[in-house]
């Protein structure tokens, strides 16, 4: 962070830089808690798959691999663009920051449309929502339903995090338009960037768990 000891800061800190570094550290610690939050979901994946491998994989084969892969690429791009925006504000280019945030926001939005508007829609259409009308019947039905529980819970929670992220990125755009950031003060941009990338990280793990592991030969 650029040295900015002349900037205002809260009274428990010795400098604006001290405060900025602390805020970023707090964000990282929050992300560590998020790791454990999703960790519990991953443990349920291990259990469900361990006890019902064939059914679980049969469920995975019903997922929409194309959308899943495209969405992964979209999120990676979004994270990349946002990071670029952060790099721009570090050298004082506010216009580029706003542009990058806007692109990142739109990519994130596209992800949500594809995920919930198209993919979930298709899944419901194919009766893949667990319950009495579930598409897969026979001995593999239970395991396949467990898979789709993991799928729906996992993508819904990730989707909620995405929506939270979109709100935060939108907030950064608003504040940037009000000219509140400078090379000396851009802590919120960096903190939201961490969160945005973390949402990406969660998806990077969910993607193979949902689409790839069960897609055996």
């Amino acid at each position, binding site marked *: 962070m650029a040295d900015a000891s002349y900037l205002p800061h809260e009274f428990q800190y010795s400098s604006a830089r001290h405060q900025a570094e602390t805020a970023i550290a707090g964000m990282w610690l929050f992300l560590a808690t998020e790791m454990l939050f999703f960790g519990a979901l991953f443990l349920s994946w291990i259990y469900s798959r361990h*006890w*019902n*491998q*064939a*059914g679980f994989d049969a469920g995975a084969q019903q997922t929409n691999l194309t959308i899943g892969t495209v969405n992964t690429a979209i999120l990676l791009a979004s994270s990349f663009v946002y990071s670029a925006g952060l790099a721009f504000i570090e050298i004082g280019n506010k216009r580029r920051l706003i542009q990058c945030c806007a692109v990142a926001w739109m990519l994130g939005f596209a992800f949500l449309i594809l995920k919930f508007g198209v993919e979930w829609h298709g899944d419901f259409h194919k009766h893949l929502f667990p319950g009495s009308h579930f598409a897969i019947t*026979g*001995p*593999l039905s*239970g*395991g396949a339903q467990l898979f789709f529980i993991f799928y729906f819970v996992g993508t819904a929670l990730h989707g909620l995090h995405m929506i939270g992220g979109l709100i935060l990125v939108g907030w950064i755009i608003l504040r940037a338009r009000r000219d509140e950031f400078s090379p000396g003060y851009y802590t919120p941009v960096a903190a939201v960037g961490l969160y945005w990338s973390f949402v990406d990280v969660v998806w990077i793990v969910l993607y193979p768990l949902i689409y790839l592991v069960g897609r055996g030969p």
Partner: protein
Amino acid sequence: MRLWLPEASTTAPEIDYLILALVLISCAVLALVFGLMLLYMFKYRAGSDVDRGALAEKTWRLETGWTVATLVAFFGLFLWGANLYVRLFQPPADALKIYIIAKQWMWKAEHAGGQREINAVHFPVGRPIQLVMTSEDVIHDFSVPAFRIKYDVLPGRYETVWFHSDRPGTYHLFCTQFCGTDHAHMVGDIVAMPQADYQKWLERNGTGETLAAAGKTLFMRYGCSGCHGGNGVGGNQSGSTVRAPPLAGLYGSPVTLTDGRVVTADDRYIRDCILMPDTQRVASYPPVMPSFSGQIGEEDLLDIISYIKSLAPEKPS
């Protein structure tokens, strides 16, 4: 008021020794902690002018000393407890099997001869007894304090405990896993009887139909015989169109699964085959068996397993 608990099984004294050892260790530590505390409270109270010179500055040696001492003691206790635990859950091969089905809020017991009882388990003294237990709804727990045994009874799988009692008598059976409104009423009697009395009891309560006989009827009714053959001799040998493994002599023998594992066909294995055939495919047979999950009740299941168990190995022709 009674402050002792009968030691009615062969393992009970062993567990009591371990508990006694723990009590003695605890008392020694408590005597040390309270003793030192009271001593210092008196000796070093603010008003006393006892000598306080030559304070121990080096704490390192003392710290390491008591850390190592606790570690060694703990490791010993671990080994002692672990050894008991492992033996507690390895039933001897010759144990008499009694089946237990738990449901909100009662215990049902079934004997091989078809005798059924509720909230009571009668068994003979002088030989090991193995309980094969499952639940129809929530998790319960089969606990007999006089035998020092306890194990959770889960829905959807068999758990097992065993004991060996030499003391005839009636003991408490408790459900010790909270299971809903009448949890406190899910209690019963464990009745240990001399061998002769047990025989009489069996005869008095006999229904005329053993578990295996009831199972044979069910084996036909659920259509098992369609593929596995009328006497469980296997498909293709009795004119059936589907090739299914023979069941005669299956119980207790090793089975090779498609993924290469070799398992012993016991109660749990047969149960899983019926309910989740998908996970237990036997090598060299086509995966055609449907799951009977949700279609056979726990009691019927036990009957069918008893029937399969009763099928003697075929004589080689």
